[in-house]
């Protein structure tokens, strides 16, 4: 039976409450890292391609196989001026597996040579046709659906990773870091702390620098005030107190990760610098956190990280397979940045401990407009990492004109016999939670992901948390 969204909220507030009333935890803000230890030093990165990435030009049918995917693609994506068609010959260097539904040969966009290298190492799961029922074409609503792990209209206030964190960490922990200035929607909850900082170097306590001589005294007073509150019997004081202590210490512990990394890992640091792309720079921040943990940096226990990269809302001037195109440039940035980060992780000895999911709020319209694409529905997600079982998962959506909805988009389907059956985002989340983050199957259904009710061919009424890309 599907549980109500209210019990999700209740669940997280109960988790918060339990952390409020556990006096033994108050002395040491990081004592709850015990749970983190039970999943080992495993990391999960959520990478958001903001704007709606054109999935049909990201994983492209190079042939028809037993169906007509390539023909349908050629109908929808034109050649010539403004045409977005990526030809089979442009795909020769980035071919991956076959589409499970049709047998069509698939290729990554020619810009994604970096990702292709990782695919050839068997470290990339290409998961096709991802979405959810009643897909929204609004950026905001669609993003919130992916972040919350609930279809639009469900109006849940927390994120899917957030609910996982709330169930496992206490108020004084910092199990998540967003490499940006706000807490990302997928991490949102109230039971535990998530740092939001675009650069470790700039995560600073806001001291008044005019009187340097006062800073040490200011810090002592601040820490004393907040430690006092953390030890108070009034639960809300204790919560605020603990949060303040962990915040102050985080500004000190995370801040040093920058120098630690830069001094020890000059070659990779320079490689990120030379890449000169925001995704590479953001991934370097994640690398700093991970490297710090491998070096035993004090009070650094983050397990979840989030990165967002914009520019995917390619309504016009999208470009096809040529290297001077806008979409080529975006996808090259993704592929090359991920390759660099993966190599860095290998070099740090943690490649097997990092799983990355690359997602967007929606794909784009099957048929292109003049030189771009409008908002669409299902699209491919990438999950990669040293422990990932690479390959193609899920079916390419049915892009035949006759199969599209009134607005020209592919249609979400959960019909078991459908060779174009969609992959629900919640099966990806559940597989990650179960096989990577150690959350029991039933707990996932109770605390994090609720099954839909309704028509089982059009709603997510049966979970599959064993998709296979994580053992």
């Amino acid at each position, binding site marked *: 039976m599907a549980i*109500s969204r*209210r019990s999700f*909220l209740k669940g997280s507030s109960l988790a*918060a409450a339990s952390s*409020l009333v556990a006096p033994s935890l108050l002395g040491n803000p990081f004592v709850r890292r015990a749970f983190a230890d039970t999943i080992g030093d495993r990391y999960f990165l959520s990478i958001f391609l903001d704007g709606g990435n054109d999935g049909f030009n990201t994983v492209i049918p190079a042939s028809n196989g037993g169906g007509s995917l390539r023909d349908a693609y050629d109908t929808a994506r034109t050649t010539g001026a403004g045409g977005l068609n990526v030809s089979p010959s442009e795909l020769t260097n980035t071919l991956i597996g076959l589409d499970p539904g049709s047998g069509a040969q698939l290729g990554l966009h020619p810009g994604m040579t970096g990702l292709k290298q990782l695919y050839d190492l068997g470290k990339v799961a290409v998961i096709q046709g991802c979405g959810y029922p009643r897909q929204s074409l*609004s950026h*905001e*609503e669609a993003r*919130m659906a992916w972040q919350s792990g609930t279809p639009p*209209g469900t*109006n*849940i*206030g927390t994120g899917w990773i957030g609910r996982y964190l709330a169930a496992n960490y206490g*108020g004084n922990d*910092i199990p998540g870091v967003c490499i940006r*200035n*706000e*807490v990302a929607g997928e991490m*949102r909850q*109230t*039971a535990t*702390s*998530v*740092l*939001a*900082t675009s650069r470790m170097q700039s995560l600073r*306590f*806001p*001291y*008044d620098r*005019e*009187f340097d*001589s*006062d800073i040490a*005294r*200011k810090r*002592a*007073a*601040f820490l*004393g*005030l*907040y430690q*006092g*509150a953390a030890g*108070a*019997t*009034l*639960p*809300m*004081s204790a*919560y*605020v*107190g603990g*949060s*303040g202590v*962990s*915040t102050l210490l*985080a*500004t000190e512990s995370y801040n040093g990760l920058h120098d630690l990394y830069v001094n020890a890992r000059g070659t990779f640091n320079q490689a990120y610098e030379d890449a000169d792309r925001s995704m590479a720079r953001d991934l370097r921040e994640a690398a700093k956190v991970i490297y710090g943990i491998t070096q035993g940096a004090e009070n650094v226990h983050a397990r979840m990280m989030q990165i967002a990269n914009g520019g995917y809302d390619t309504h016009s001037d999208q470009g096809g397979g040529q290297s001077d195109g806008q979409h080529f440039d975006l996808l090259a940035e993704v592929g090359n940045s991920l390759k660099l980060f993966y190599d860095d992780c290998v070099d740090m000895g943690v490649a097997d401990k990092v799983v990355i999911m690359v997602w967007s709020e929606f794909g784009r319209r099957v048929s292109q407009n003049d030189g771009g694409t409008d908002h669409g529905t299902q699209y491919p997600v990438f999950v990669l990492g040293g422990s990932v079982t690479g390959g193609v998962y899920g079916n390419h959506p049915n892009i035949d004109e006759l199969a599209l909805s009134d607005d020209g988009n592919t249609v979400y389907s959960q019909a078991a016999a459908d060779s174009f059956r969609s992959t629900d985002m919640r099966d990806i989340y559940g597989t990650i939670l179960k096989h990577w983050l150690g959350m029991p199957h039933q707990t996932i259904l109770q605390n994090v992901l609720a099954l839909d009710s309704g028509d089982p061919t059009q709603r997510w009424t049966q979970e599959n948390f064993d998709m296979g890309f994580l053992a």
Partner: protein
Amino acid sequence: MGNATSLLTEADARLLLRRAGFGGTPKDTTKIAKRKLTRAKVVDGLFSFKPKPLKLKKDEGLDQFYDTWLQAMLKTKKPLLEKLVLFWHDHFATNNTTVQNSDWMIRQNGLLRMMAKGNFRSFLKAINTDPAMMDFLDTLRNRRREPNENYARELMELFSLGVLDEAGMPNYAQEDIVQIARAFTGWRLDDDDNPVFREDAHDFNEDFPERGPKVIFKDRAPFGASGADLTSRGEGAVEIDVVIDTLLLHQDSEGKSTVGRRMTRRLFEFFASASPPTAVVDEILMQSGFATTWDITALVKAILVHDTFYANAATPPFDVNTKKSVKWPIDYVVSTLRLLKVVPKRDKDRGVVLENSDTLRAHLEDMGQRLFEPPSVFGWDWEAGWISSATLLSRFRFARDLARNRDKGKENFHPEKLVSLALTAPGAILNAAAAVLGIADQLSDGDRTFLIAYLTDDGAQPTLNLNDPDLRARKLHGLFALLLECPAYQLH
């Protein structure tokens, strides 16, 4: 035991002005205590305002209106109105990210303002056809062919009944949502964006016999086995008013007014503290008569004169039963600026700006509250939901930016005008500064020790000469920053 006729002490007055407004200056609270006024008398005074929509200049967008609202909060002599509007903005949470229409958002703000202390029945009926709400919860897309349940669900779950009653029993079933959604079909906006009922878009019983009659709450008190018929006053436009009238009659599993209890709880949690016992909820509801009159003013007054409200004036050491609430970011920013007599300028391009710092809107957003953008229909997450490392650092940044402005124009921070420079004893200076912020009695002995250690450089200078501008710039500005950052000031 006290009640409406109990005299307001100075500590009570501080609490009342903090919760029903944006804090009182030491002068305000001393004056109230000296006049030996009853709780009821002071509370009546807080309610002596006539609501008016905020004026907006032509062609100004939502950000400008936001600034106008901020300036109104900073200046107003009737802060309770603003507090109520904030409550209703959260209760009927609507965000412009979804609505994408500044005019409708501004219009909704006007409605919240006009109805803030009025009649709750009329308020709900007005919200039914508020354009921003009609868009936000899909009434505009509620079609007879496939009725959209979005508004029907939230109307019951969030705006009136709640999912569960005080005893933890469900208040309604999915079938009730379906039937209410049908009643809301046919409502659209005309060319002037005014709500209009379109008969041809409405779901009449005879058109869809398979859906059964529009009857809700079968087998529920006081409706009995046959339930409440939403077409009892005819089919068509009147149905949505009947929905509201029916919801207000709804009784919970204990035979009490479901909406009465829930609104009492919500308003108590807003003005006083989380999780009041059911007995307190029932007592306030009974004393207010809200469950029959639906008079919001009577309900809020009953809360603001109740003993349980004044229990929150408690001084440290707090025990585990003490109730304190986390200040909303908007409360933190507005009350701080008011108490410190800082009046941020409104820059033509940027908006209302803290000198040498960001706009107030940006500060508030960093702290987790952007007005007109509640994160979802649930509104903002209160209490612990306001606190994270990122939001705390944002509060501290605001405190730092405000307090480090030295020797700037008179609209900026000037602690020398707030604290007597003749004071030399660190304890007395601390008391004076904390009193300005209304927290002198909220600091524990431990807090005082740490703050005095800061002032005296760990005892190196046992007295302070505040007439020394350098020392004042360092320690008095620094002390205020610490007080704005301290845990006691995050709570109220």
